[in-house]
């Protein structure tokens, strides 16, 4: 009896703590939702609310007990893989980019915060030392009386009329030294507020624009600029646009540009072809090399197999980013070690980074070096599964090594390899890191509208378009990403079908 009572109380107590924690998490999410909403990110607020609400209900109600096990993982995948894919595609339908970065409210606020100095109100100034602090002295100027402020503290100070002798002022040097402090300072005077206008003057300033109906901004001289909601920019009456702009939807504009604009379409097509060629050749070279090595290592007469195996795995064991950067240095045209050897032995020194053709060859060499051990490891595993009887039969028939390989080994290990080869193709199709670290896309193709390198893969081209080129164009990058997602999705689906196919066949084989 006593035992059960104790267990019950501990159980209740633990359940209570659990509920309290869930409630706390729930409140945390509410705070997040509220914060995101106030920030002007309604989409993220809705997502955060959904994630939080579903999570809390799953962990609160025993009805969803099973789903508690999968929910955190699925939520992470949803938030950081699925949502970004959808969001990136959505950006493809906007003009989001360096020129159209903000929301319209922020753009308006920016224009309204711009001020210009009123030249007539300019007054020279000098600092006056006062203990550890400073006063500012504005001498008599253009009929305005001399002013002396109190000791500066904070960002506001009042200037009072100063009669009598000018105080002892400090040289301009000290104004330079205290520039940061002075730049934030406002001096209140009878003639209005003065702010710093250069190292020698304080002056009154007024906003350039005043806002009118429908967001139109008017300057003091009567020029009007109106917001154009189709292009996300303010436009003057003479057609001149004024940056910064804001994000607006542009429909399929980015897609049309990518697929039809001269100067983009052609290089894009070349990049696409190269991406496919790169992924295809990489797959073939790594697979054949890896398989060949695995077969040799499998040979029972081979001594020192374990030593060879470890040494052969090394390129895979070393972190990829280090190897790629090492090759970037070794292939360097002027002081790289590869050209050093080539010029000593053959008196040639290929320009690996400036010739588009050689740059591509270099990428394939490096990618083969990086990728063959993975294939070798896989092949070694699959070779183990080939029935020994087949080899015995072949030997009895007097079949040679090559013939045995092509008529027994290859047909036996290819079916399980197919999904892995497709996955490898997809991986290399999007092998952005290799390009970014080794060639950075270069050498650039001549005469294109956007920066395109001749070794760029679709992915690295897009990454550079969004993050490294001078005029960051997220909209265009989003559009191209969407196209890549479609291709990748297709490959993934084919891969998935191939895996299912293989699993079914294997299953059928076992049954029959």
């Amino acid at each position, binding site marked *: 009896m006593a035992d059960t009572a104790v267990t019950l109380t501990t159980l209740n107590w633990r359940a209570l703590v659990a509920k309290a924690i869930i409630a706390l998490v729930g409140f945390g999410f509410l705070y997040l939702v509220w914060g995101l909403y106030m920030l002007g990110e309604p989409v993220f607020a809705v997502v955060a609310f959904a994630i939080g609400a579903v999570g809390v209900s799953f962990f609160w109600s025993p009805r969803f007990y099973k789903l508690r096990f999968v929910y955190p993982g699925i939520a992470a*995948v949803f938030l950081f*893989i699925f949502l970004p894919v959808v969001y990136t595609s959505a950006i493809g339908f906007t003009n989001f980019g360096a020129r159209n970065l903000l929301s319209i409210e922020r753009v308006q606020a920016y224009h309204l915060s711009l001020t210009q100095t009123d030249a007539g109100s300019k007054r020279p100034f000098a600092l006056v030392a006062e203990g550890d602090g400073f006063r500012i002295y504005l001498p008599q100027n253009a009929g305005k009386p001399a002013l002396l402020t109190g000791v500066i503290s904070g960002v506001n100070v009042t200037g009072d009329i100063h009669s009598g002798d000018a105080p002892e002022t400090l040289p301009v040097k000290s104004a330079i030294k205290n520039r940061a402090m002075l730049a934030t300072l406002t001096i209140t005077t009878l003639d209005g507020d003065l702010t710093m206008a250069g190292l020698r003057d304080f002056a009154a300033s007024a906003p350039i624009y005043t806002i009118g109906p429908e967001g139109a901004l008017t300057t003091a001289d009567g020029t009007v600029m109106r917001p154009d909601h189709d292009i996300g920019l303010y436009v003057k009456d003479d057609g001149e646009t004024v940056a910064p702009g804001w994000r607006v939807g542009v429909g399929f504009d980015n897609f049309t540009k990518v697929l039809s604009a001269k100067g983009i379409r052609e290089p894009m097509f070349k990049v696409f072809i190269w991406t496919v060629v790169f992924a295809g050749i990489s797959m073939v070279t790594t697979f054949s090399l890896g398989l060949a090595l695995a077969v040799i290592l499998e040979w029972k007469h081979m001594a020192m197999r374990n030593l060879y195996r470890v040494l052969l*795995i*090394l390129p895979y*064991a*070393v972190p990829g980013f280090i190897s790629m950067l090492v090759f970037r240095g070794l292939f360097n045209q002027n002081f790289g070690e590869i050209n050093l050897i080539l010029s000593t032995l053959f008196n040639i020194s290929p320009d690996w980074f400036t010739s588009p053709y050689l740059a591509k060859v270099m990428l394939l060499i490096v990618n083969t070096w990086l990728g063959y051990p*993975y294939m070798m490891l896989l092949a070694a595993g699959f070779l183990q599964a080939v029935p020994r009887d087949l080899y015995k039969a072949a030997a009895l028939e007097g079949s040679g090594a090559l013939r045995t390989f092509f008529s027994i080994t290859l047909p036996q290990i290819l079916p399980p390899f197919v999904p892995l080869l497709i996955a490898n193709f997809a991986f290399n199709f999007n092998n952005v890191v290799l390009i970014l670290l080794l060639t950075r896309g270069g050498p650039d193709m001549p005469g294109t509208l956007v920066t395109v390198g001749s070794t760029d893969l679709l992915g690295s081209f897009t990454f550079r378009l969004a*993050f490294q080129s001078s005029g960051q164009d997220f909209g265009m990058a989003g559009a191209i990403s969407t196209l890549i*997602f479609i291709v990748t999705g297709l490959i993934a689906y084919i891969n998935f079908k191939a*895996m299912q196919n293989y699993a079914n066949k294997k299953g059928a084989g076992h049954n029959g």
Partner: protein
Amino acid sequence: MVEDKKSLLWKKLLAHGFMITFIVVIMFPFLMVLSISFREGNFSTGSLFPERPTLEHWSLAFGIPYERANGTIIEPPFPVMLWLWNSIKIGLVASAGILLLSTTSAYAFARMKFRGKTAMLDTLLIVQMFPAALTVIATYAIFDALGQVVPFLAIDNHPALILTYLSAITLHIWTIKGYFETIDPAIDKAAQIDGATPWQAFRYIFLPLSMPILAIVFVLAFIFLVNEYPVASVLLRQTDKMTLAVGARQYLYEQKYLWGDFAAAAILSGLPITALFLVSQRFLISGLSDGSVKG
């Protein structure tokens, strides 16, 4: 099987000859980097073996200022050890998180019946193919917004990166699920009869039984994360926040080409990860064949 002794000898010689030549070619970059790390200056000076070996680059890689013979003191160009520490810290925490999320999910997928299970599993397999490098704009936007509400998750903070990395569980779920399915269902039946909840069965039976596969997943996740470049390069901007993968790139800019310093830093930082991989490679191979590809 009878084989001609002489032809066998030729074959052996050929095989060993091929292997040794191949390995020499493959090892060339490693040997070069080792030699460069002891060479004077940051440019190649024409010899493959350093004539006057110096410890300058190694000293700088360890973060110790180096005094040259003529008295000039060279300050370390980058905080390599800090980057290595950042990489290890982020890798360990995120891998632990990945392990937690993928084991619980895998358990449910292997042992429980619920609606949409097959669809979820298939989606996971397809979703993992999408390149993170292309969705970084969105990832950046998410954390830009989150950071303004919760400063802890702002850009340039490691928790933001760790949280993103938790999504790298898709393949691991499949791997662990495969392992769980080999555990005899009679065991959970017995536990159920004794009154264990599914969580207790998972915690006290499945987890202890699957330690080997959990170790594999942990190491694979760790190696993948330490190598990850695109997401880290966008979320970490300040030099002292960077991971090794992001920071190492700074050595080889055309304007500032620190080849020698890079060589020492590369060996120093690559060694622990390489060693980890080689020590665990026997166990990793089974994990690899489940279709994961290292980046």
